[in-house]
């Protein structure tokens, strides 16, 4: 049984091998060949649209979270820790328990929102990655499209389920510790796993048979300025993030770990001596330390993820139907936002909320650039689907 359909041979873009099977198609950068790599509502198109939309959606959610939830949540956690210190001073163990219960709830609130943001953007990265490997997935077009849909449905439902965990809890759940939102998130995760196993099966089929090169037209060979800048800029961002992480681990990680236990001990000593001023100072120190750790980790992870995003987007550029000037604008905006956000997140401790605001604007720049590129891809698809000769 054939597991995949023969690839369409674009005019001038492919050739037949001696056995009659299609051989490697490496399309040149001509409109007809690029069009052949992007069939109407095929798996690759779905994954490109869905991937960019998921990343933009995840980033928008992250920006909203940073502005409206993150700082407020940190303040409330500090207040709860202060309440625990007061309970220690008052020799009131049940008060300690209540305060830690509140801290747990605040951490869950914060953690599920960060997880929703991370899982949505990461599902988008994976969707773009899957779009890249479609030429090597030896399955029928219908199956590939089904897997792409399955992946995108999972990619939307997983962060939604994670987001709802804090609000739904275990209400109306038949289980004592797992709520409906967790069930939704886990089911969506299962959809993603099934889709990925399907894609791996297709890859296995392809490399096991070795009968053909690519099972469909490969990505266009693009040597444009946009691709080169996105590839070099993206890898540079990853390198910078890696160097920052190494610097943080080498110079600050151990010091921060020692400081954390030292501050907690001082907090307890102050509270047990009924010195609430000292305990309050320790709570403030603890909050400052957590903030310092958080901005370093956020800067490290964001700059690396933006680097990966830039590299992935470099492959989508042939499908962005905009004139060269606009394509350059979006690429420049994306790379500028990718450096502004992590740098100003790092500077937040020195410059305060102004820096946080500039970081948020950096995030917004990346989102706008992504939407700009998505519009370009939509325009390209529209032209492509409108009829022959329209895709020039």
């Amino acid at each position, binding site marked *: 049984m054939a597991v995949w359909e023969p690839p369409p041979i674009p005019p001038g873009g492919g050739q037949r091998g001696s056995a009659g099977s299609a051989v490697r198609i490496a399309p040149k950068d001509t409109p007809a060949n690029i069009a052949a790599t992007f069939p109407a509502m095929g798996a690759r198109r779905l994954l490109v649209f869905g991937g960019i939309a998921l990343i933009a959606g995840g980033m928008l959610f992250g920006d909203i979270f940073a502005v409206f939830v993150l700082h407020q949540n940190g303040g409330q956690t500090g207040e709860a820790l202060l309440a625990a210190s007061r309970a*220690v001073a008052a020799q009131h163990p049940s008060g300690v328990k209540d305060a830690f219960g509140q801290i747990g709830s605040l951490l869950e609130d914060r953690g599920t929102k960060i997880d929703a943001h991370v899982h949505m953007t990461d599902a988008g990265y994976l969707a773009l990655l899957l779009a890249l490997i479609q030429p090597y997935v030896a399955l029928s077009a219908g199956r590939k499209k089904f897997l792409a849909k399955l992946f995108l449905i999972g990619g939307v439902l997983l962060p939604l389920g994670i987001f709802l965990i804090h609000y739904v809890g275990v209400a109306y759940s038949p289980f004592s510790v797992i709520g409906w939102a967790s069930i939704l998130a886990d089911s969506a995760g299962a959809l993603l796993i099934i889709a990925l196993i399907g894609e791996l099966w297709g890859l296995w089929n392809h490399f096991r048979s070795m009968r053909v090169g690519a099972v469909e037209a490969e990505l266009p060979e693009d040597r444009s300025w946009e691709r080169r800048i996105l590839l070099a800029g993206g890898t540079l961002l990853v*390198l910078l993030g*890696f160097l920052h992480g190494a610097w943080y681990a080498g110079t600050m990680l151990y010091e921060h770990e020692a400081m*954390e236990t030292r501050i907690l*001990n001082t907090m307890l000593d102050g509270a047990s001596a009924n010195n609430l001023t000292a305990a309050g100072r320790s709570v403030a120190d603890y909050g400052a330390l957590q903030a310092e750790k958080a901005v370093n980790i956020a800067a490290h992870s964001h700059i690396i993820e933006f680097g*990966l995003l830039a590299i992935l987007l470099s492959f989508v550029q042939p499908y962005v139907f905009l004139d060269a000037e606009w394509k350059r604008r979006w690429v420049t905006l994306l790379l500028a936002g990718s450096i502004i956000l992590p740098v100003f997140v790092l500077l937040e401790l020195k410059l305060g909320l102004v820096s946080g605001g500039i970081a948020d604007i950096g995030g917004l720049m990346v989102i706008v650039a992504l939407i700009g590129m998505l519009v370009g891809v939509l325009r390209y698809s529209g032209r492509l689907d409108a009829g022959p000769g329209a895709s020039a």
Partner: protein
Amino acid sequence: MSAASKLLIFGGIALAVFGMLYGLHYALFVEHQTLDRMGGSLATAFTNAADRHMSEAHTAIAAYGATRYDYVRQVDVHSHWIGLAMLMIVLGVAIDHVAFGDRIRFWIALTLLVGSLVFPLGVLLQSESHGAAFASATAIVGAAIVTVALAAVVVGFARQSG
């Protein structure tokens, strides 16, 4: 598909699968217990302090610190293995755009693979033997190898003629 590309893509997939299996094992058999121990130690410290058992309170804080030290590194190992694997797969698709010869491209790919294996391994060793110099040295060497490989990729992409 070039040899460098194959090495990065298949090495990346293998590393990702390994990292995920490690993460799954950690999540199923270690993580929940570790988180319980961490939260429990902190709450116990405060409760002991409320009861004015300060020696026990400080012991609980020390236990919290030690558990957190392990937890941070275990999560880092898992996420860095998978993260570096993702990077390898993506660069595997793009490596043919690096403006060096096939031989150099293959060496860059090999260097990236070795660094991506060794760097998180060093972090894992730090967790197994707290404060051991060889563990930190392994992590530093691995990180340096990845840095060199990434710098070569940046130069290769930047050199490419438009």
